[in-house]
């Protein structure tokens, strides 16, 4: 073991600490506005629906808060590597600092405060401002958005391996395509006929698991007409990767035309459908051949 005399004689870390904090502050002051104002507007899931916008704002906030942390630890790592690297074969010991003390307290308090802040803010966003943020909330949602017009219920039925959609307010017609009117609150009742699926309307920023025997409600407020991709986000078997389709947000007038056409086109199927229900139990029994 080498002597620690040289280590004990080393100067204190004060100038290093000051320099490190200066670099960190400088980089953070540059990076955080860049994240908020340059990257922020281009953050997924964009602004196609109110839910997407709310999620994007959360993403911007988390990125803005995470950036100084990322920079801080990277700067400390790189600074240590650059300043305290020992070259050559000589083996010298560093100063025997055991740690603890003020920095430790500051670190614990600071991380706890940030985390509690995030949790409180996340709860307020989820239940208050974003009204569920497009996520599945189960059969009795806590956060219900209200619009000027009545909410349009649409049932999303996952089955191996296709999505179908039922409109209980239009005679319970079932369709292969999802179309919804812009500017209205849509209540998506997601359920499944066999195994677990997950309904993900990517641009709408809606995700709700489709579980057999369960009614999982997610709300969405699309802001303007356009199309969006729907995918399955829970591994559901062979054609999971193929369980996608395209949905449309239409103007209220176009939606009225569309749904009328669908009612006519699917009349033969509608006649034989079971009455609308929040969930349908698949028969589990093993059938004889």
């Amino acid at each position: 073991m080498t002597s620690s005399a040289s280590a004990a004689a080393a100067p204190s870390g004060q100038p290093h600490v000051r320099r490190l904090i200066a670099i960190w502050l400088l980089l953070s002051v540059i990076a955080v506005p860049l994240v908020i104002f340059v990257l922020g507007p281009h953050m997924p899931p964009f602004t196609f629906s109110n839910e997407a916008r709310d999620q994007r704002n959360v993403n911007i906030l988390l990125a803005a808060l995470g950036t100084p942390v990322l920079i801080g630890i990277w700067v400390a790592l790189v600074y240590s590597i650059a300043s305290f690297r020992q070259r050559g074969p000589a083996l010298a010991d560093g100063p025997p600092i055991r740690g603890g003390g003020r920095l430790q307290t500051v670190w614990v308090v600071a991380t706890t405060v940030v985390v509690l802040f995030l949790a409180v803010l996340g709860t307020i966003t989820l239940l208050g401002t974003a009204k569920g943020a497009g996520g599945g909330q189960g059969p009795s949602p806590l956060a219900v958005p209200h619009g000027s017009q009545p909410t349009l219920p649409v049932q999303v039925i996952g089955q191996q391996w296709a999505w179908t959609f039922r409109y209980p307010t239009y005679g319970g017609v079932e369709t292969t395509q999802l179309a919804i009117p812009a500017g209205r609150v849509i209540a998506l009742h997601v359920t499944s006929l066999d195994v677990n699926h997950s309904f993900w309307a990517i641009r709408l920023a809606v995700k709700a698991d489709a579980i057999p025997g369960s009614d999982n409600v997610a709300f969405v407020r699309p802001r303007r007409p356009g199309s969006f991709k729907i995918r399955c986000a829970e591994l559901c078997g062979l054609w999971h990767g193929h369980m996608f389709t395209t949905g449309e947000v239409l103007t209220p007038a176009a939606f009225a035309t569309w749904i009328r056409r669908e009612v006519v086109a699917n009349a033969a199927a509608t006649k034989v459908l079971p009455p609308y229900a929040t969930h349908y139990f698949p028969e589990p029994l093993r059938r004889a051949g």
Partner: protein
Amino acid sequence: MSRGARVLAVAGATAVAVVLVAIYVADFLAANPTPLRAAPAPGGAQLTLQTVASYGHQPHPDWVSYLARDGSGRWHHTTVFKVPAHALVRVTIYQYDTATGLRNPFWSQVRGTIGGTMTVDGRTMNALPPEEASHTFAVPELGISVPLKGVAEEAPNQCEVAPCTAAQAHTTVTFTFRTGNRGRFRWQCFVPCAASFVFGNGGPMQSIGWMDGYVQVV
């Protein structure tokens, strides 16, 4: 250990590893059915299929399955079909299985075919009572979904081993669809027809080569 022995040991281990990896990959690839080209026909192609209640051969004699017929009239155990692009494809399905019934009656309506119809034993129909369906032939990405009428339970001369012959009890379903651009589209059955599996959705229902496959538009 001498240097030569060490080289030999490492070379041997490497060879064993390469062989095992090759077997592993081959085992995977072996599960891929060979594609069958639909027979040419005026305006496009003719695809002739049959569905059987039990394949009757190894590896899964009890599984329901589709089979396809080539131009010379021989039946092949495959579910990967090649059809021409931008053409009319006439599909004839000889259906030898009894009815199971649809889980979602929505699929009882014919969709995506020319005229939105099919013929069942010569009769033109646009839907089937959901409990009479034995299988469906559905290509969701092309919007095609056709329910196939099951054979009556009490019908005599039921087919038990593939390939089934014209003399055995069956229904004949025909329909035509128009293909678009080239691509590889999956097709499947929506009737929970896998006997003895939970939900009727296991085994053949989840296996390419049985109740699932690809339509390759070339």
